[in-house]
């Protein structure tokens, strides 16, 4: 599809959008401060722009249009009420630095969300400010760092992560100045306890763990793991990318974790927006409470107020200019109020039911579970190693062919330790009919892989584009549009060049 810049015509504009009348002169701003070359933005009418971006939207899969069994991403339905209510004019118009007496309605939502997250995670205190999961991880590991430093244990420079961990775990540890040590996983998908015992010691700052793990199984010896790490003087970090399988069933705090982050854009149904925004609140046990990032919200006698650096001198500090992704927090708040007390455990029940059902059906259809002796949690892994070897059709090929069947692909090639894997997470909001249709699609692709493998290897065939040349994308970097040879300037060239584009 053409680019918005290619629709641009000099002198065209959406006039209603900008201030009326002749632009005022900024004659008090000396020339040396002024822009020399006009910003190269496109010149379009409102109908042009509306049609262009509406059509672009139609070149996307989305949860509103497609099933997204994307493991570890929790693509559940995003309730419309949450969006509408977070976008009420009063919330949108509120300036982040408005005084507290003009912010009580907003602060009440935040404080109640803090309290609800405390209860759901079983932690002593929560800060809502991290803007996404990775920032929540940063906050968590920075708190672990602050804790050890305050105790004078500066030799604790190592963070342990399982080899199946999300890439953000080791990346976060590095950002916080730690070195990373990987712990292997055993054949049943649990952490290798002997290797863990071997690894812990006076250099251990902490262990980062997801439970249920990214292998889609519950880490059964979690209390033992917690004891090993704690006895070595380390702390336990819970990567709560996803609580879907454990809501109301078991809590990170009760498992012995010292710090947890929660991805609200997963468990609590806020939209992914094509890559964000998310929100990654952090919860902590009592010993880490002084280090929580600011701002937080406090309540006294029905009045709400901000808690900032001034009264929390040991805080790790601030992670963004204001209070994080407030609008995402409001959406999660609405979702939690709609679910209520009983609704939480029902999420876990149905997410787990759907995952185990889909696993059983895929197994019946001839696919191989990576951990056949284990229950699925909210997600599970199948490995297409045999299909790749015998039929020459890889997990990537299956993934691309699923797109032709109208299903978004599951997470592929993650975790790295299971070859040719699909990490599949159906979530609780899908009906059994959808799951059955997915199984039928997988069955059909498997049949095709046996009879017409070329069709699978070259999929997709029905989308706006075929497979992409990724190598060229990385080698011949084209990251911003430039006009073709012969055209002058950009979409909106400096005024001197304008005549030449006139035709």
């Amino acid at each position, binding site marked *: 599809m053409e680019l918005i810049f290619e629709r641009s015509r000099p002198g065209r*504009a959406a006039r209603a959008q900008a201030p009326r009348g002749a632009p005022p002169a900024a004659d008090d701003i000396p020339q040396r401060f002024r822009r020399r070359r006009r*910003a190269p*933005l496109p010149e379009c009418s409102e109908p042009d722009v509306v049609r262009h971006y509406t059509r672009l939207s139609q070149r*996307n899969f989305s949860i509103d249009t497609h099933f997204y069994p994307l493991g570890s991403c929790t693509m559940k339905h995003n309730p419309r009420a949450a969006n509408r209510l977070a976008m009420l004019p009063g919330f949108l*118009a509120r300036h982040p630095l408005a005084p507290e007496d003009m912010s009580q309605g907003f602060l009440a939502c935040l404080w109640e969300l803090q309290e609800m997250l405390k209860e759901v995670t079983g932690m002593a205190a929560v800060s809502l400010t991290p803007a996404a999961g*990775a920032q929540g991880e940063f906050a968590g590991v920075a708190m672990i*760092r602050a804790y050890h430093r305050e105790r004078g244990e500066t030799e604790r420079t190592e963070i342990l992560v399982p080899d199946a961990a999300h890439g953000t775990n080791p990346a976060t540890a590095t950002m916080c100045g730690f070195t990373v040590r990987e712990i292997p996983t055993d054949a049943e998908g649990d952490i290798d306890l002997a290797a863990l015992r071997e690894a812990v010691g006076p250099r251990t700052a902490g262990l980062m763990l997801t439970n249920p793990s990214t292998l889609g199984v519950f880490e059964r010896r979690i209390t033992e793991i917690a004891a090993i790490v704690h006895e070595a003087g380390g702390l336990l970090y819970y990567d709560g990318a996803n609580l879907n399988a454990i809501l109301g069933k*078991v809590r990170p705090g009760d498992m012995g974790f010292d710090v947890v982050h929660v991805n609200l854009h997963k468990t609590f149904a806020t939209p992914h927006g094509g890559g964000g925004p998310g929100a990654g609140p952090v919860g902590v046990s009592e010993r880490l409470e002084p280090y929580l990032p600011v701002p937080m919200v406090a309540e006294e006698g029905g009045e709400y107020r901000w808690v900032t650096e001034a009264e929390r001198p040991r805080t790790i500090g*601030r992670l963004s*200019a204001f209070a994080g992704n407030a609008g995402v927090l409001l959406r999660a708040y609405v979702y939690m109020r709609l679910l209520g007390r009983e609704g939480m455990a029902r999420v876990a029940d149905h997410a787990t039911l759907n995952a185990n059902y889909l696993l059983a059906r895929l197994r019946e259809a001839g696919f191989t579970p990576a951990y056949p002796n284990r229950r699925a949690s909210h997600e599970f892994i199948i490995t297409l190693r045999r299909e790749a070897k015998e039929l020459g059709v890889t997990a990537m090929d299956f993934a691309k062919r699923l797109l032709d069947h109208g299903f978004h692909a599951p997470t592929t090639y993650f975790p790295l330790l299971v070859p040719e894997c699909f990490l599949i997470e159906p979530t609780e909001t899908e009906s059994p009919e959808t799951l059955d249709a997915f199984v039928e699609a997988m069955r059909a692709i498997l049949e095709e892989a046996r009879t017409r493998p070329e069709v699978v290897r070259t999929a997709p065939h029905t989308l706006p584009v075929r497979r992409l040349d990724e190598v060229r994308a990385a080698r011949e970097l084209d990251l911003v549009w430039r006009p073709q040879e012969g055209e002058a300037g950009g979409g909106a060239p400096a005024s001197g060049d304008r005549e030449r584009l006139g035709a």
Partner: protein
Amino acid sequence: MPFVPHTEDDVRRMLEAIGVDDVEALFDEIPEEIRLRRPLELPEALSEAEVTRLMMDRAERDGRPVCFAGAGAYDHHVPAAVWEIATRGELYTAYTPYQAEASQGTLQLLYEFQTMIAGLMAMEVANASLYDGASALAEAVLMAVRAGRRGGGRRVLLPRTVHPAYRRTVETIVSPQGIELVEIDYDRRRGVIDPGALPEAPEGLAALVVQQPNHFGCLEEADALTDWAHRHGALVIGVANPVAAAVLAPPGEWGEAGADIAAGEGQPLGVPLSSGGPYFGFLCARKRLVRQMPGRIVGRTVDAEGRTAYTLTLQAREQHIRRSKATSNICTNQGLMVTAATIHMALLGPDGLERVALASHARARELRAALAAVPGVEPLFPETPFFHEFPLRLPLPARDLLRALGAQNVLGGVPLAGDYPELGESLLVCATETRTPEDIAAYARHLERIVARQGLFRCPTRPGGGG
């Protein structure tokens, strides 16, 4: 129950297929001693109607004051089409575009965004967003240190004229990596860094940060500062307001060679004030620094049939590939906000954005003249060119003034004394194109009355005194 489609019959049939008697059996791998055997202590579920009523009451409770506060969040008009389109389910509920063939809409949109923001900043490349302006600056600092020649410099000059919350965020994020942030003070009379009074360049200098307009709304001598830093072998990180950049020289045009990295807050481009977020941070750079950039980057390529197509590229920088050696841990960014900003920039175009910038500046000039006419109130840096906000010295405590103005449905600005005690009782005040002459007149009238009333009970404060 909300959002779960299963009938009782569904559940029965599914359990049968799995081969268990009840749902509880699916949790049998969780050790009993850690199971939660009581209901969560949470409120009971509300219906959609009930939660709507609750949220409407709360949203209304906070009122909708006429906003003269800025300090990093600006009340510009957002065209109706922006969020009408951005909240279409196909954009709003899409995942990160890892499956390129199923995400060409989002990917092309991000490529258009990168083009627009890089053009606006007069830089060569851009990423697809970071969390907000403050965290974008932190990432820019890390990037500058990584890019440092001969791997030496770990010192970064971070002037006091940079937004205080940005400085604190940078400190939180970069200090674990042993980067030293060095403060530079400002000229008390002019509210900007004096390029003539810069310290000896410290050893191991990696970068200088310059915010334009700075936190006081004043215009820094960006050309001289950029040339100074380059002379001392340091990179320049420009923190720019993207609306102001339609009129003011963008970082890429500073000095002889231009800044090396531009970072900032994208909120003024189509994102409502919304209590501070979600906004989005942008990050642009010279092409030679692209491999040091954090976050997602979209590239244009071709598909198997030679058709133009878009994909996430240079992923070998990122955490899901490079793990502990990634340029950053960032994964989820602010995709939807960038979607809105792209539509916003396309609607306004170069002329519209320039008009918004010029009108904001004109309203701010009118506002400053009107407020400074109130006895006892005076601009702090009257001689320095400014864009759309400015600090005022007050004859009464800023908090008292804000409370009194709040009673008149006016949000009068943001107090400065907490971060700049040397300025005494002072207020940072802003006007955008959305403030009308009537709004401005009303603010001046209320201010005059409040100050006069204050005079009855307090010794008059001599203008310019105290502080």
